[in-house]
């Protein structure tokens, strides 16, 4: 039997409950995760001191390592809020979705994914997505159906919709980054700062490098003359504010260089 519980880190009921509930919710924001942690402590072991979240999660991850799953922390591309999800590292394909969706639905997602990756802004218009509906594998899907399937993806936090355009939800990026980088090595964009997969971001108009909005925020924090780290040209975009968990309301954060204010995806 896997000696997972005998190796690094000990699983107690606190950790187990935490995992159960994290799994139930799928993806949680950092403040929700903290609250969840406190709840688990209260329920199981109210006298123990609440471990620091980072160590708590690291502890759990050391046990999950042998199972090829991990609690991953990601940062949402639009406003930099940290989110956590339990991801499966073993499989390279979209297998978490595979059990939930039909073949043609999965293919629709794949097509949407390709369009998003190839796009300049990281968004694919619903018109473009719907236009490929005839080419889907599996049962024939009508456009009306496809619209509903897209909404299903949004509800399940795989895609985000904004003004008729779709992009990847942070959760999808967390889960599928590996797969995306392997499947579309030429088309993917990478952030110049964190070297992670980039779907939405800002780009330098001179040399073309790209950066995530939260990475831009952190890099140019309190810098009155932001310059491209690569070619040193003046950075032409509005610098967003660093995500501050204290200022929970969206209005407090200045919006990045986008067409208009957008509602929170979560």
């Amino acid at each position: 039997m896997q000696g997972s519980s005998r190796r690094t880190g000990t699983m107690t009921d606190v950790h187990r409950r935490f995992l159960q509930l994290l799994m139930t919710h799928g993806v949680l924001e950092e403040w929700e995760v903290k609250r969840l942690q406190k709840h688990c402590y209260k329920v199981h072991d109210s006298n123990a001191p609440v471990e620091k979240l980072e160590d708590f999660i690291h502890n759990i991850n050391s046990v999950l390592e042998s199972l090829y799953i991990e609690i991953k922390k990601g940062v949402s591309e639009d406003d930099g809020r940290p989110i956590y999800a339990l991801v499966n590292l073993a499989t390279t394909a979209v297998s978490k979705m595979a059990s939930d969706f039909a073949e043609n639905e999965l293919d629709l997602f794949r097509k949407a994914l390709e369009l998003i990756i190839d796009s300049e802004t990281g968004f694919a218009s619903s018109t473009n997505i719907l236009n490929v509906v005839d080419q889907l594998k599996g049962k024939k899907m009508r456009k009306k159906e496809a619209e509903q399937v897209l909404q299903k993806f949004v509800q399940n936090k795989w895609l985000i919709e904004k003004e008729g355009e779709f992009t990847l939800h942070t959760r999808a990026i967390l889960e599928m980054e590996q797969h995306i980088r392997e499947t579309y090595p030429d088309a993917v964009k990478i952030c110049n700062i964190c070297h992670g997969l980039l779907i939405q971001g800002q780009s330098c108009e001179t040399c073309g490098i790209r950066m995530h909005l939260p990475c831009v925020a952190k890099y140019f924090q309190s810098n009155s003359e932001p310059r491209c780290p690569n070619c040193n040209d003046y950075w032409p975009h509005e610098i967003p504010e660093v995500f501050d968990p204290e200022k929970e309301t969206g209005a407090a954060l200045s919006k990045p260089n986008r067409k208009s204010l957008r509602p929170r995806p979560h």
Partner: protein
Amino acid sequence: MSEASKLGCDPMEAAAAEGEAHGAPASPGGPSEAASTSEAAGPDSRPLGPGDAPAASPPPPPPAAAAAAEAGGDEEDPKAPLQAAAAAAAAAAQAQPAPRAGPAAAGPAAAAPPTAAQLVQKAHELMWYVLARQQRRAALWFPDMVRDVLSGGYKKWCRSILRRTSLLLARVFGLHLRLASLHTLEFSLVRALEPAELERVALGAAAGGGPGGAGGRMPMMGLLLMVLGLIYVKGRGARESAVWNVLRILGLRPWKKHPTFGDVRRLLTEELVQQRYLKYQRVPGAEPPEYEFLWGPRAAREITKLQIMEYLARVFKKDPQAWPTRYREALQEARARRAAAPPTPCPRNSFSED
């Protein structure tokens, strides 16, 4: 601690939402199930062969027969009923190539049995599959598991894979994979909560800001405990009128909608009955017709009499010994439970038989 070994439990409604409690296994149910189905496993063992067409190897009958023989002797063998049913299901559910975005699962070569590493990998995949389904609140159906995860030559190893998966789920997540219904081969994932834990959760000790799923059930458990307590104190069954007299004290009336519970009467007579916590039946011979509430089988399994006594003591601010007969019964039951269910984990820690 493999929950799979408790597959002989009464078929219960598939708890699509997370079941709040698990409690002691119904060991009396286990042996009779295994014994009765082991005969079925015998003649059915051959259909496993054709169902396993891709593997196309002679092995199917011997392991199946061996397993059936084992099932007869070992009353704790979980998979005998499962195997018999799996054989039937295999014939019924054609192995269509499932629309999987194919994780790299290298099936075993034509006649070679899968290596331990491959079995372990399959167990991990199955674990993830179960968790993902659970998250979506989709049904956990054994034929689906076979089609989506155990494709190729793995079906005849479903026993060991399932066992490993249940162990993993129990150890890492504290969840028990339990066969909810033998007929529909549906599984459910329930939380393995200690009885004391159940009480704490039920009485809202973890109240306030708990994540969504837990929040909805807590007040219901409190209500349930109240009704169960009343029934218990009365002896066998409590007339509906008596129950409502008590609930009136809490401000619950059958005709009024309650902010937390909604339609209380429906909750008691339908939902909790459906979930097997209560039984609602007509009192024989009562004219005009009257109904009474009794303990349901699930309540009997998950909630101990001692818990009820402690709960009542707290609610009425009396000592549990104020109900002397009942208290004696509760102690007896506790002693019987402790004798019946050894607290040590299931001894199946080696997989040498695979």
